């Protein structure tokens, strides 16, 4: 059997090598590996079967996985984006499934001590106490902690990890799972479909408004880990939900892979807001497929922040399939040394009177590269559709790079489409002005950058906005001198 139980691990000084690799990444620490199960490296049919067996899945899900594995193997790598980095991925060197503990806990005290400490250090329980309606914390492949406020549970809101969702609400899952993103959508959605584990399952009953955000926290710990969570959010007619996810990982010298699939379904008049603060360490490939369907009068918002990772390729999509549906993508990317943030948005107008807004802001520094890649598609008969796209790029130095790849496919005449793109540099004059008021160069840069991201930051809950500003400050300190 390719998988082995409790693989022995080397004991390492928890922080020594981390400091030397990335002194400015505060989430770079790693825990000792102490797992219930860790698959061998590489992807085999046997691994897919054992994941499904360990999870006690219904037969249809195993078949779905095996079909997806076949698609993954047959599909070529994308020939766009950052091909060089993509082709560097060594699929045979990745651990596809790691189970850190026997089960997900509802009580914080029962989470295994080491993992609990990790999430304590990341501030998760504290955040939960302060302003969240529910939390799941995923460590490697599995959700280790999960909670939801009682009042929401009483209103019938379901907030579970995806595996429990499948076990406890198989009918709802089967009806919606992979309907927005079929496994064959792209190579990485196929990979996720074959080996998915964890992620969130949310179902909001008709008319219920979840006013306080639900949050998931994703943590990769092991080196060469592949994390493939699967999230499905279904908002029944007239409901509202705001979901926030955050991600971090330790710093290793070799790469890990995060490849999620996120599907959102906003039924008639429903409203889903999905916020991501992605702060993976700079050895993580972040190749994520996110797509939403918005029915009549529904509204979907992707609020997407990309700070970390080595390569991110992510283009949150919204299919506006019902009349008057509205979609918004607001994204920011900060790309530093050895980083490429290839992010953007896709909006499909497939019904009349639909509207959409895309605002993308990117910052490149220390030789980093940020790309905006976007698609606006308007189908025939989607009359009176409106779309506005705005991309702003800020370059902090000569060595950095910014590109814009907008695509418009408009097959209907009665539409209004606006596109605006700007590229600017942090001006010597702006820096001089702020420094003449006593701010150091790093403080001045951080202030300019925070200002540039402000349209994004102001959409975040206060605690997140403060944290984001602080992270940017750290990044700027790291880049000066």
């Amino acid at each position: 059997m390719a998988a082995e139980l409790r693989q022995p691990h080397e004991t390492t000084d928890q922080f020594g090598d981390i400091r030397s690799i990335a002194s400015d990444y505060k989430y770079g620490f790693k825990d000792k590996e102490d797992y219930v199960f860790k698959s061998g490296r590489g992807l085999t049919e046997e691994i897919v079967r054992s994941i499904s067996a360990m999870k006690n899945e219904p037969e249809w899900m195993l078949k779905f996985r095996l079909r997806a594995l076949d698609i993954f193997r047959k599909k070529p790598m994308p020939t766009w984006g950052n091909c060089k980095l993509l082709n560097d991925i060594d699929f045979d060197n990745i651990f596809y499934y790691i189970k850190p503990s026997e089960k997900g806990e509802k009580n914080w005290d029962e989470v295994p001590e080491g993992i609990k400490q990790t999430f304590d250090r990341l501030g998760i329980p504290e955040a939960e106490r302060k302003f969240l309606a529910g939390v799941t914390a995923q460590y490697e492949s599995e959700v280790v902690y999960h909670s939801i406020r009682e009042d929401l549970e009483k209103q019938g809101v379901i907030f579970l990890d995806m595996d429990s969702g499948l076990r406890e609400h198989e009918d709802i899952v089967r009806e919606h799972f992979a309907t927005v993103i079929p496994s064959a959508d792209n190579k990485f959605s196929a990979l996720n479909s074959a080996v998915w584990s964890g992620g969130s399952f949310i179902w909001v009953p008709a008319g219920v408004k979840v006013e306080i955000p639900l949050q998931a926290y994703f943590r990769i710990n092991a080196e060469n880990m592949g994390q493939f969570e699967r999230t499905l959010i279904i908002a029944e007619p007239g409901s509202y939900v705001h979901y926030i996810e955050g991600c971090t990982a330790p710093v290793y010298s070799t790469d890990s892979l995060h490849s999620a699939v996120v599907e959102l379904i906003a039924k008639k008049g429903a409203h889903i807001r999905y916020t991501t603060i992605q702060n993976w360490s700079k050895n993580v490939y972040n190749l994520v497929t996110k797509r939403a369907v918005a029915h009549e009068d529904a509204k979907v918002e992707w609020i997407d922040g990309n700070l970390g990772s080595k390569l991110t390729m992510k283009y949150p999509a919204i299919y506006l399939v019902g009349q008057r549906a509205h979609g918004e993508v607001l994204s920011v990317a900060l790309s530093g040394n050895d980083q490429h943030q290839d992010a953007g948005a896709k909006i499909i107008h497939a019904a009349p009177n639909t509207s959409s807004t895309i605002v993308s802001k990117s910052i490149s520094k220390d030789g980093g590269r940020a790309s905006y890649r976007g698609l606006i598609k308007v189908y025939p008969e989607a009359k009176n559709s409106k779309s506005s796209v705005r991309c702003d790029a800020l370059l902090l130095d000569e060595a950095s790079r910014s590109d814009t790849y907008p695509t418009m496919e408009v097959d209907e005449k009665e539409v209004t489409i606006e596109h605006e793109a700007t590229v600017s540099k942090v001006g010597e004059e702006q820096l001089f002005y702020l420094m003449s008021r006593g701010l150091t160069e790093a403080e001045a840069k951080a202030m300019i950058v925070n200002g540039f991201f402000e349209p994004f930051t102001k959409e975040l809950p206060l605690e997140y906005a403060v944290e984001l500003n602080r992270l940017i400050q750290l990044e700027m300190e790291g880049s000066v001198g």
Partner: protein
Amino acid sequence: MAAREPLLKIEDLWVSVEGKDILKGVNLTINPGEVHAIMGRNGSGKSTLSYTLMGHPRYHINRGSIIFKGEEIGELPPDERAKKGLSLAFQYPVAIPGVSVSNFLRASVKAVRGKEIPVKEFRQELKAQMALLEVKDEFLSRYINDGFSGGEKKRLEILQMTLLKPALAVLDETDSGLDIDALKVVSTGINTLATEETAVLLITHYQRILNYVKPDFVHVFQSGQIVKTGGSELSEELEERGYDWVTQELTPSGVA
């Protein structure tokens, strides 16, 4: 130590920008609390002097010294000069989108004073200065100079000076582009600023502002040098007779 050490002593200062000599041997001494006006034509190098004093990276000192509070500051970055008590009100303040005026003012006052100021205390101080400069509350939540009118920009500059309370405030053409009402308000601000603790170096093209702000000394700037120095009456003479008169005199006044 002398009974009254000069606040600023510029000696034989030569400065170039992108290889071109602009300042050619400037000498200037300012004592604590004094108000000095530098007058001169456009292109005479007045603004270069203000940028050099504040430490703009594109201005290179080739010769001479700038002694501020007894220390050579020619090599210090702008933020350290600010912390020592030097400040510059810009002729063309830049916009910084996304950064609110209130956040910026707090950060800057904290940086210069070297300590956190209690929110309430800061708020009170700010409100008092804003009232003086006839600045509306909504100013605070706007982004720095973003979409500001010329007059609003100048008021924000003076507002910053009154909060930072520098030992020397250099005001670079603060009067340019102001209508008469705005000029009066800004002048009130400058007069509040000019105390025993704060010396003012007012750089201007026109005599107009000197009707409201009375300088102790007036210097005429020409071809990168101070060519004549006098009391406030000199500015009136300049207004009447024009800068050509000084040129014709061609008698550099030998300012100490």
